[in-house]
């Protein structure tokens, strides 16, 4: 039975072997999907919707993340998100909030402050409204962070690098190397703290950390220098000879383009620049992009097996975009559902169709579960 089924597979389809070459999905698709979910999160303060967004991204991460060290950073992002909520609550407790509330939960002793600190309050009345507002706000920020964490876990930033335009590649490598610096630093701290315990010294506390700090930085610096040497010896930064005219045009286009983008954005944002804003912005963008592609000529680099942008990538990106679009639309049409009232205090309700829209974000879990197959 099983065999006959297996034979029914089309001949060309690759057998799901243990050493599947690499996850097929373009890393850009994952980033767009995650950032779309993040955008959706900024449109609402409804804790139920936000929790749904978090659950959606967490489910997709659990289903699709590859078994790489960066994939494990997801938990770190979750912890960071929890810390953000906690900090936001502590601030609301200690500093009070401008939200007028009637439900007083407790009253902290208020610290009298001089006049010039007008508007700042230390201690005093803590109301349910202000705490809830802080919680909603913190949760929104936390959702955003978790979405970035999901992108990080699903698509290694260094894979994204492959899709960068040639002119930006060198900067990209520098950024990625800087990103890997942090995990190495943590590993070093752990190793040195173990060594401190070997000498019978306290490995915790500020003093312990401070004494470990210098050797850790020293080691990290040495490793970075060694890496830089290795990269140099392996041809990082080789450039092709381009005629000076091309080089000058590149510089002019890039700089001019960026200036145009700045001016255009300014025009769009100010009231009186409504007429020239958009055209200037577009012209600037075009010039900057032309500069970039011309700058790519200086770079000799070729790409090894770049990730293809295929139908699945479109679908994953599309599902994220749909969530963002739906919530943006809902936020303008039914703001009350997406921003549950604080004054007067009401229990948040789950708006039905925005919630259904958020579930669209689950699509990648069914489209791209293959990356799990990596050994």
């Amino acid at each position, binding site marked *: 039975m099983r065999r006959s089924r297996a034979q029914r597979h089309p001949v060309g389809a690759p057998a799901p072997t243990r*050493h599947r*070459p690499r996850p097929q999905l373009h890393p850009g698709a994952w980033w767009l999907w995650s950032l779309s979910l993040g955008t959706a999160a900024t449109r609402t303060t409804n804790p139920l919707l936000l929790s749904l967004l978090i659950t959606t991204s967490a489910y997709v991460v659990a289903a699709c993340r590859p078994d790489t060290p960066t994939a494990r950073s997801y938990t770190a992002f979750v912890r960071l998100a929890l810390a953000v909520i906690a900090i936001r609550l502590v601030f609301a407790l200690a500093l009070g909030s401008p939200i007028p509330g009637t439900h007083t939960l407790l009253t902290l002793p208020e610290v009298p402050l001089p006049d010039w600190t007008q508007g700042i309050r230390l201690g005093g009345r803590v109301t349910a409204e202000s705490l809830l507002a802080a919680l909603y706000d913190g949760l929104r920020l936390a959702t955003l962070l978790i979405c970035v964490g999901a992108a990080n876990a699903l698509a290694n930033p260094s894979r994204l690098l492959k899709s960068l335009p040639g002119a930006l590649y060198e900067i990209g490598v520098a950024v990625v190397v800087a990103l890997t610096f942090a995990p190495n630093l943590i590993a070093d701290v752990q190793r040195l703290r173990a060594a401190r315990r070997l000498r*019978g*010294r306290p490995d915790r506390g500020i003093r312990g950390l401070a004494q470990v700090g210098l050797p850790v930085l020293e080691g990290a610096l040495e*490793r970075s220098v060694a890496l830089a*040497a290795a990269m140099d*010896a392996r041809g990082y930064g*080789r450039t092709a000879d381009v005629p000076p005219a091309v080089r000058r045009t590149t510089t002019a286009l890039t700089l001019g383009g960026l200036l145009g983008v700045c001016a255009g954005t300014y025009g769009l944002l100010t009231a009186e620049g409504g007429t020239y804003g958009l055209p200037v912005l577009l012209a600037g963008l075009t010039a900057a992009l032309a500069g970039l592609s011309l700058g790519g000529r200086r770079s000799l680099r070729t790409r090894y097996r770049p990730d293809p942008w295929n139908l699945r990538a479109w679908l994953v990106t599309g599902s994220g975009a749909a969530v963002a679009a739906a919530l943006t639309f809902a936020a303008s049409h039914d703001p009350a559902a997406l921003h549950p009232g604080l004054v007067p205090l009401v229990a948040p309700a789950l708006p039905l169709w925005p919630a259904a829209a958020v579930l669209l974000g689950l699509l990648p879990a069914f489209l791209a579960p293959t990356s799990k197959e990596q050994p």
Partner: protein
Amino acid sequence: MIRFDDVSVTYDGAAEPTVTGVDFEIPEGELVLLAGPSGVGKSTVLGTVSGLVPHFTGGTLRGRVTVAGRDTRTHKPRELADVVGTVGQDPLSHFVTDTVEDELAYGMESLGLPPAVMRRRVEETLDLLGLADLRSRPIATLSGGQQQRVAIGSVLTPHPKVLVLDEPTSALDPAAAEEVLAVLQRLVHDLGATVLMAEHRLERVVQYADQIALLPSPGTPPILGTPAEVMAVSPVYPPVVALGRLAGWTPLPMTVRDARRRAADLRQRLEDRDDIALQGRGAAIDVRLPPRGRDQPQRTRSRQPSTPPELPDEKPIRRRRFRRRHTPTPPPSPHPADVQDLAVTHGHIQALRNITLTLTPGGILALMGRNGAGKSTLLNTLVGLVAPAAGSVTVGGAVGLVPQEPRDLLYADTVAAECTAADADAGAAPGTCRTLVSELLPGVPDDTHPRDLSEGQRLTLALAVVLTARPSLLLLDEPTRGLDYAAKARLVTLLRELATRGHAIVLATHDVELAAELAHRVVLLAEGEVIADGPTAEVVVSSPSFAPQVTKILAPQQWLTVTQVKAALAREPRSEESPS
């Protein structure tokens, strides 16, 4: 292929040049070994080939280095990347990307090779180095030998004419080292690559070298010649050469095979002098046994599960961990350490399983096995850094561990400050550590920065710091990494002396020669389990990869080291016809 024209290198701020008078040529398709004691500038010479010296490191290079016709003065390292492939001492600091396949492609991407060529070369290199199964693995999860092969592969893909390797096998276990060297030999023989490499463990590499460039001491010009010529005058030499020198063979043998062919006579002489040489229980070996059979690994293990409170839960261990340094009399154990049915897990991985070991005072135990077999984990468990998942670890007193990177133990700016801190940490009388340092490391001024010490000196300083707490059990993790033969000999003397004073010593090491020289007992680990445990002679003689060179040469007689052979030869022969 590589031409040095009277090259000398002076680093900024240094009074004298690090290397001078380097003037030789390496023809295409040769494997040249750069040998010499530590600190003679081997890495500097290697760096001049890739252009990293002086373009990256700074300093002044006089003379001229030409690689494949390109002058390194006018070509930066990145412009030499297509002709020179460089692998440094630490493969981990060499990796730019994070999976094997991407890493192999990185160099070619930088050079701008067409995608079709890259694809083909990656596949070829995966096969050449036996990495095909690991292609999509994150590099961080690979073992040391695998990482070293990936590092070599990553510089091979652009098809450089020259490979420059700095200590490619120092961090590897014997089997992995052979793997890497076999690949290098294949590159030289089949692809005509030119290889220049520096290595301390000459016993591993000397047989592969076509020529040796010897830097005898700092600031002296190198001597270039065939291995046999150079080894005759070299201050550093592997055991096979030591035995050849002792027996007066000319030309000196470079391989075990060469030496075996000439050794018939030597075996006969040894047999004349030592009637029990055949059983490997010669007097020479007796010298190395700890006093009066205190070390009886097999029997202690099975005969008396004599030992302490069978409290399989973690509580007693936890407590021991906190009390480690502070109480002079922790849970009474008759042995420096007693390990019963120990298991340790890291995440999902079972790092150690069913380990049962009893250590005796004055005994030296060598832990050997592949990279990743669990040696370091076992040491960390003994010292209390890792909590056992099952079983028990009982120690009879303080335990001291010198980690793989001795620098981790040293924080202070000067040797004196380090000693003061060590005294305070250990609760020892002021001056204890400094006395130890003066004893172990004579002539090191108080105000030296630990970083400015040589590799061997730093190890000894860390050892002194650890010894300040008077541990009854001393653990060393890979102590000979980066040590030259002289430093290693000093370490051996030192550890022997400590053992006679009653310290139990455990070494985790890949260095079979060190284990043969020093250990009374060898424990082989594989995948977290003990696969062999017994007196050194028994365990290493029967293992092809862990047998020292002298054993291989003189088999079936069971000699382990040149020192033993020398001692035996010094005795009167039993028969009357002495060769006088």
